[in-house]
């Protein structure tokens, strides 16, 4: 369950301040599938980053599964990102010079999932993202645009997170941004 209240975000670059979010409040219950829409530059990514515990709001509160995210330290946030959240970045952010397989394994490396279990999960995620084995050992720079996107999705799904945050995962205009809670 996600509850946010009066969340604002002000970016400061030197002396210049830019407010990207003006008091956002909403609740998303478990199992809900929510899409956030808005024009370019309206603050969707900013909001997603806050929901994904990657960034902190300037003011307002964010409760994730009843826990106030602002009260958590760096390690606890890392644990949440690792165990609960699968994030698909708008820029995908694959590791350069790294194979598809390793890119998708990475969340499991930090979650200490090893051996057969790791292999199984990685394969499952990659198959469900539409890859066959022949692409497993391709490096990030040997992939097509769509394939990069699918690797990013497979990486977000691999550890069965309860919250999947996808920032324009399909890149098409009618589904701007989706938040899916499985």
């Amino acid at each position, binding site marked *: 369950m996600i509850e946010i209240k009066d969340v604002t975000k002000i970016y400061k670059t030197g002396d210049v301040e830019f407010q990207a979010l003006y008091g956002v409040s909403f609740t998303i219950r478990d199992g809900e599938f929510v899409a956030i829409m808005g024009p370019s530059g309206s603050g969707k990514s900013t909001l997603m980053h806050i929901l994904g515990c990657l960034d902190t709001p300037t003011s307002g509160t964010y409760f994730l599964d009843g826990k106030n995210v602002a009260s958590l330290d760096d390690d606890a946030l890392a*644990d949440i*990102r690792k165990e609960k959240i699968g994030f698909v970045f708008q820029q995908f*952010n694959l590791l350069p010079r790294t194979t598809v397989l390793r890119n998708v394994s*990475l*969340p499991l*490396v930090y979650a200490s999932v*090893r051996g057969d279990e790791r292999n199984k999960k990685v394969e499952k995620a990659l198959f469900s993202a539409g890859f066959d084995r022949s692409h497993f050992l391709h490096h990030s720079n040997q992939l097509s645009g769509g394939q990069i996107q699918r690797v990013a999705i497979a990486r977000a799904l691999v550890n069965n997170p309860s919250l999947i945050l996808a920032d324009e995962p399909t890149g098409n205009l009618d589904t701007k941004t989706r938040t899916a809670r499985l």
Partner: protein
Amino acid sequence: MTFADLFHETIAALSANKVRTGLTMLGIIIGIASVISMVSIGEGAKKSIEGSIQGLGSNLLTVMPGVVQPGRAVVSAGRGSSQTLKNTDAEALRDIQGISAISPELNRRFQITAPTTGFNTNSTVIGAEPDYALVRNLITDNGSFITAPHLRGLGRVAVLGPTAATDLFGEEDPVGQSVRINKMNFTVIGTLQKKGSAGFFNPDDMIFVPLSTMQKLLSGDDYLSTIAVSVTDKDMMPIVQQEITALLAERHRVDLESPDFSVISQADILGTLTQVTTTFTLFLASIASISLLVGGIGIMNMMLTTVTERTREIGLRKAIGAKRRDINLQFLAEAVMLTFTGGLIGILLGWLVAFGVTKLGIVQTSVSLSSILLAFGVSGAIGIIFGYYPARRASNLSPIEALRYE
């Protein structure tokens, strides 16, 4: 994160830019190799000096005129002080308990020629008694050393050190031939076995004549330049040294505090030389340490560069659940792997250099475990210290800040 994963990540990161990794490692390799080889040269010099001092004669005390500090020149040689030791002083010493042999000596440099070959050399001629060979650990190779009859009869006989023998006679056997010292003919009665230099005293290129002949015929004085005393037991050395000092001070009517002679023990000489070689080793080591430091700065530079370059990667790792510790660990592992691999190769190389220097006969070397441990410890510390700082800086960034980094 498991060890296997950490290892995998480290290898992948280091092999991503092989040239840079190689060059950084080269800095450490050169640093460590130079520390190890330099220290081994210093240690080797120390050992060979100690060895040759021991070879000068066991339990040796040397009485010299003037105030001499071992390893340095004569400090105070007041008027006539170089003539303070007489034959009677040497005789008087024979009454002291714990002395096994006494060798009064008088040294002078002379031009020496061998009329049969026409060769000549400028060398130290030592007027010696039969006990000289015993006290100074000399062994005749051929013929005999000076004997008591030679001494009594002012025998015009000479014994040649091996270098002096080849200088004068080449490959010929010198025994039985004659040499001219100060325009006087001497018959060669023996040659000595090769002994090697003890740094400041090399018996190999010296020539020995009976002490009486030296004093009466060659130099014309009856003073001594040295009295070498062999002590029966190592533990007796300090006592005998004191007794000699007391006895001679009394005979010369001088104050014990400001004697006109010096009694030097092997331990004194060894101590001073050890001090000199230790300084020498330290000097070499400090030069080598500078290159190790430069290597360390190379590592730090590389770590800073990679951390900066890989800030986005760090952001991504944090975004998918890496903790600060994981990031720190990863960069630390890279730095440590770099220094340890470099360290191992450096140790091997340093050891090879030391081995080569010995094999080529340049100087004796001795690779000590402590220098290996020191170099390895230093390189490890460099890796940890220099790797830790950039890693910490990177792991403290928030994931989004790091991902936005350009």
